[in-house]
């Protein structure tokens, strides 16, 4: 019994060393955390005042999506990297595999621990991330949210891709065109607590109260959790439960593609239409097949681009991040922080068969 415990101890020690450095060598496209030329790592006494970001570039920002692998967020990352080149800063793209608040918090905790210079977050849960957001800001790390906000006291600024009310209105308007002004419509959303989703659904419901949409009847709201399979099943479920459903509105890129595929598989193209927010590459096939004749979106690349510029503006002290501050965002021109602490990217663009081919994201 004795000697085998020594044998075990040596083997396991090896194992941990392997796992630990194995981890460091994982080929995730993350450059080695540059030895921040800022104040050397705080040993014992935690330095309270915000670390002065060295003016000479080298700022180490992190773009945190809801979950990795999602084409929408990948496109936002390309925009963010473009902004990084222009500003001469480094932007790492890190996220959890599941669109889940717990894992996002653990990731953010370790990023705060690494004393990064700025965080651009698309939040999985507006309230659960407030304590983490506060913690980052206390540690002198500016927090900018984009696409999906953290509640105000957990962030500096929120970049709204398009004014929520506008997004809600355009989707109902598209649904009405497709349904010919009357019939049953349903909403397939992402996760049940995604702040942006609930905001848009709220405005959609308001829009529906307008007289011109009196013929439309919202029969159900279901949740696909930004997972392809779940969204697909929920869409199939909707079509079975409501045989004479006319339109499915999916204000999420994952949901809209899955619904379009579900419509095709249930061979109800032409009978049930799909609209909402989707990326051209993803929806090109369904626009051509007629399952999703038109949908709207904004360019997520611009969203990523603007998020990094805003973050850099705050980090370098160019702006304080208070309402009323204005700053230049490279190719997108100047932006001013509205009094509710948000910045508006711009109106959504509507894609349809005729203009889908001039976009590639």
């Amino acid at each position, binding site marked *: 019994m004795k000697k085998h415990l020594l044998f075990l101890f040596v083997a396991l020690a090896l194992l941990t060393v392997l796992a630990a450095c194995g981890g460091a060598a994982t080929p*995730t*496209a993350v450059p080695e955390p540059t030895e921040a030329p800022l104040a050397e790592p705080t040993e014992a006494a935690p330095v309270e005042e915000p670390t002065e970001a060295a003016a000479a570039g080298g700022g180490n920002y992190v773009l945190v999506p809801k979950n*990795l692998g999602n*084409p929408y967020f*990948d496109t936002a990352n390309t925009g963010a990297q473009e902004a990084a080149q222009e500003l001469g800063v480094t932007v790492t793209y890190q996220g959890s*595999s599941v669109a889940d608040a717990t894992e996002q918090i653990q990731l953010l905790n370790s990023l705060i621990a690494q004393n990064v210079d700025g965080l651009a977050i698309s939040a999985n849960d507006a309230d659960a991330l407030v304590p983490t957001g506060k913690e980052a800001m206390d540690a002198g790390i500016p927090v900018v949210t984009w696409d999906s906000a953290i509640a105000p006291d957990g962030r500096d600024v929120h970049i709204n891709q398009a004014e929520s009310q506008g997004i809600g209105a355009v989707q109902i308007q598209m649904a009405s065109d497709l349904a010919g002004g009357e019939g049953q419509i349903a909403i397939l959303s992402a996760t049940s607590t995604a702040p942006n989703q609930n905001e848009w659904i709220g405005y959609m419901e308001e829009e529906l109260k307008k007289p011109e949409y009196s013929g439309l009847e919202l029969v159900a709201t279901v949740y696909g959790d930004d*997972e392809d399979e779940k969204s697909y099943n929920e869409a199939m479920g909707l079509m079975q439960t409501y*045989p004479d459903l006319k339109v499915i509105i999916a204000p999420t890129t994952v949901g809209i593609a899955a619904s379009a595929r579900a419509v095709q598989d249930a061979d109800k193209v032409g009978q049930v239409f799909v609209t909402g927010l989707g990326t051209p590459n*993803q929806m090109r*096939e369904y626009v051509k097949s007629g399952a999703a004749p038109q949908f709207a979106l904004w360019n997520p690349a611009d969203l990523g681009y603007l998020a990094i510029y805003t973050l850099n503006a705050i980090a370098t002290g160019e702006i304080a991040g208070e309402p009323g501050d204005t700053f230049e965002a490279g190719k997108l021109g100047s932006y001013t922080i509205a009094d509710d602490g948000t910045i508006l990217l711009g109106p959504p663009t509507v894609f349809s068969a005729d203009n889908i081919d001039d976009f590639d994201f």
Partner: protein
Amino acid sequence: MNTTAPTNQKSRSLFLTLVRFRELSIIIFILLLIGVVALNTPAFLTIENFRNILLNISILVIVALGQMMVIITRGIDLSVSSIIGLVAMMVSFTVVAFPGVSPLAALLLGMLLGAILGSFNGVIITAGKVPPIIATLGTLSIYRGMVFLYSGGTWINSFEMPDGYRALAKASPLGLPNIILFAIAIAIIVYIFLNHTRPGRDIYAVGSNPDAANVAGIPVQRTLFMVYVISGLLAGLAAVLWASRFESAQTNTALGFELQTVAAAVVGGVNIFGGSGSVIGVVLGAFLLGTIDYALILMQISPFWQLAAQGLLILVAVIVDSAIRRRLQRLGGAGEF
């Protein structure tokens, strides 16, 4: 139906006949459920719905059959969901990288990779003497971690997949979608293997009385190793069908699916202590779970109560199952009935 039993014994009480055909009690359970649902929403009783239920449970049947074989030998395989996730990602990457690869080749590759992952379980459990629940709990998180390590987090989306691969699951050249045909074929093959081949019968013997199996010259260690390889192989096959049906391979594909396969087996009458379980039982168990999920959506009961219904069903099945077995013991024990 395995070995029918022409009972020339004295006439037995209804209880005993019910017990002999455990599958009978599941069928009654299903009919009751369909009856209730049909009353509530008559639209339920259509071929269309029946086809959809079959579509939903095909993958569950394939993997639950592998899980059954493992449970019969008194083991359990919690790693099947991660094997599905890993094989789905690897095969999808391969198919996207080499569009020339035929869907059939993709299926074979999936089965090979699944079998290898299953064989790792086999080695750890038989040679390493690690209890099955701990071994497969370990490989559950190891294989799931490897999915992310492999893909670096990127997904394979439907527009990147070659058409043949996407059509594999849903195309219905023979009337029914392929995926249902695969499930039926696997069920038949497993039925023949378990009931008509020596290694198949050895699985039951090892699960029923391992010591007696040893004395009878049955290769117990080899049989145990074999069931984990088969479980992995079937999970590999299911992985390719999964990627094809949902036209995507994500890092969290099939997360948490393993407990569904155990539920289908337990509800299907597979004895958790090993030794007994039938292909028909597992198919019916999966069908019962599938009908529950489908009925809840149909009856507009909020989908949120679906999981609760499934959990309650497993509990009820287990309680009824043990009550039957205990009554059997008491009857058996007292000699003649």
